[in-house]
């Protein structure tokens, strides 16, 4: 596997969201959303349920169409990119893993196969190593635990060598210990921690940036450097995470 081009290492912005909005049959779901994510950093989107967090995330890889505004990936308006190429470069991991029936390796091959590429066995082992599942390649996904399945989902997304990683409540369907493991994995993937997972050095070199949707403020503080707080489809606060959370209700 070749690592992605390093062009955006010199850019100070990996993803820029400009005046994004979405209105569905007259109802405003999101309005006037602007922020940017620096390379190698994680931005958390926080807010109460129904505030538009997931709706916003779905606009970032264009699973839904924005009604206003746009997103710039590496300085390029994302509507100028073919959607399939865009979604390879902006990977997504959702709350539930939605693994495809078959083996773990089949799942990892899914993304590359869409572009008529095949991962080598070494590449698969390296990816699985980086998510803490060495020797899992030939396992049937039907027999995985919730935490393992979510790790496979991460590896499957990473197999596409994305530049941006969108995480939609990636731990909220998991028990406490799996949740801790996945948080640790996210820190490793983002290069904020390198001592836990064998083989993780391969992944750190990817100049990944991350957008994390979570309702868990503590998780946001652990994983993100920047945050935006949404309420009723609008940004109510944004900035470095400690600034956003400073005046936040300490109970939540």
């Amino acid at each position, binding site marked *: 596997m070749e690592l992605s081009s390093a062009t955006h290492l010199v850019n100070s912005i990996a993803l820029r969201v400009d005046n994004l909005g979405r209105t569905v049959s007259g109802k405003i779901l999101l309005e006037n959303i602007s922020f940017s994510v620096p390379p190698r950093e994680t931005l958390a989107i926080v807010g109460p349920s129904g505030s538009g967090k997931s709706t916003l995330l779905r606009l970032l890889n264009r*699973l*839904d169409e924005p009604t206003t505004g746009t997103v710039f990936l590496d300085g390029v308006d994302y509507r100028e990119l073919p959607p399939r190429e865009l*979604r390879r470069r902006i*990977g997504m991991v959702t709350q539930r893993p939605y693994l*495809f029936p078959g083996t773990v390796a089949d799942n990892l091959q899914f993304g590359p196969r*869409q572009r008529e590429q095949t991962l080598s066995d070494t590449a698969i082992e390296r990816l699985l190593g980086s998510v803490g599942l060495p020797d899992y390649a030939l396992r049937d996904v039907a027999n995985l635990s919730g935490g393992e399945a979510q790790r496979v989902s991460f590896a499957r997304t990473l197999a596409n060598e994305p530049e941006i990683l969108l995480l939609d409540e990636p731990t909220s369907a998991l028990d406490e210990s799996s949740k801790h493991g996945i948080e640790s994995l996210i820190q490793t993937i983002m290069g904020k921690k390198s001592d836990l997972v064998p083989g993780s050095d391969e992944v750190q070199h990817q100049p990944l940036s991350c957008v994390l949707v979570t309702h868990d403020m503590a998780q946001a503080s652990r994983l993100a450097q920047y945050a935006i707080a949404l309420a009723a489809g609008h940004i109510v606060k944004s900035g470095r995470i400690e600034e956003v959370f400073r005046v936040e209700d300490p109970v939540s």
Partner: protein
Amino acid sequence: MLKTLFHDPLRLGLAQAGAAAMAALIVVFLARRRGIHLEKELGIALVRGLIQIVAVGSVLLLLLRAPNWTSIFLLTAMIVAAGATSAGRAKGMPGAFVVSTWAIACGAGSIIALMTLLGVIDTPITTLVPVGSMLIANAMNTNGLALNRLRSDVIAHVGEIETALALGADGKSAVASYVQGSFEASLIPAIDSLRSLGIVWIPGLMAGMLLSGARPLYAAIYQFVVLAMIFASSGLTSLVSTLLIRARVFSSADQLMLRPGAPA
């Protein structure tokens, strides 16, 4: 029993229709006890079906004297009506009526045209319209089954489909397995009719031919001919409709447009 009570054929017919409808109403009652509510849909369908078929029976009287070329208009009208009926099975599917009508026109229409040209279907209006209508009706059923199945499969698997899209798949490959499944499921009735032909059921056409004095062997072979044509036209219809609807389930940017909460 009814025959001893009613001697006039029309009254006998109505009494027989009443008895058959009663059986259907018993099913509605049983379904209702299990919490499945069919009464509204089936009630309307029964009354509507009876009125329609009686009207057609009356029209047939006139048709026997109509010139053969009018078949084309009758069959076209039937195709459009079939498209509208099966589109009702796919509510929330974008463009269901247009897709269904095109699919039935391609599937049933082309087989009717081809078989008439080959001389498998006779050209007199009294043959062409009834045989054609059988093909159209079966194509309609298959189309309805295919769209209904595809719709529910897509809605039940939005997570998997959008995961595939998010991994860089196009809409076509994201729903490939559901399209395949709908196509296969929609053809089960047509395949089973062929498999059980003569063993489980002696179809109406053959019965009619026998009653009107055709040689049994020819009636039997012709029944097979009709079922094979039904299979061909149903298969083609289902193929066309699933492919056409697949393109409409996604936007040009490979966004899934059919979501849970779409009108049922």
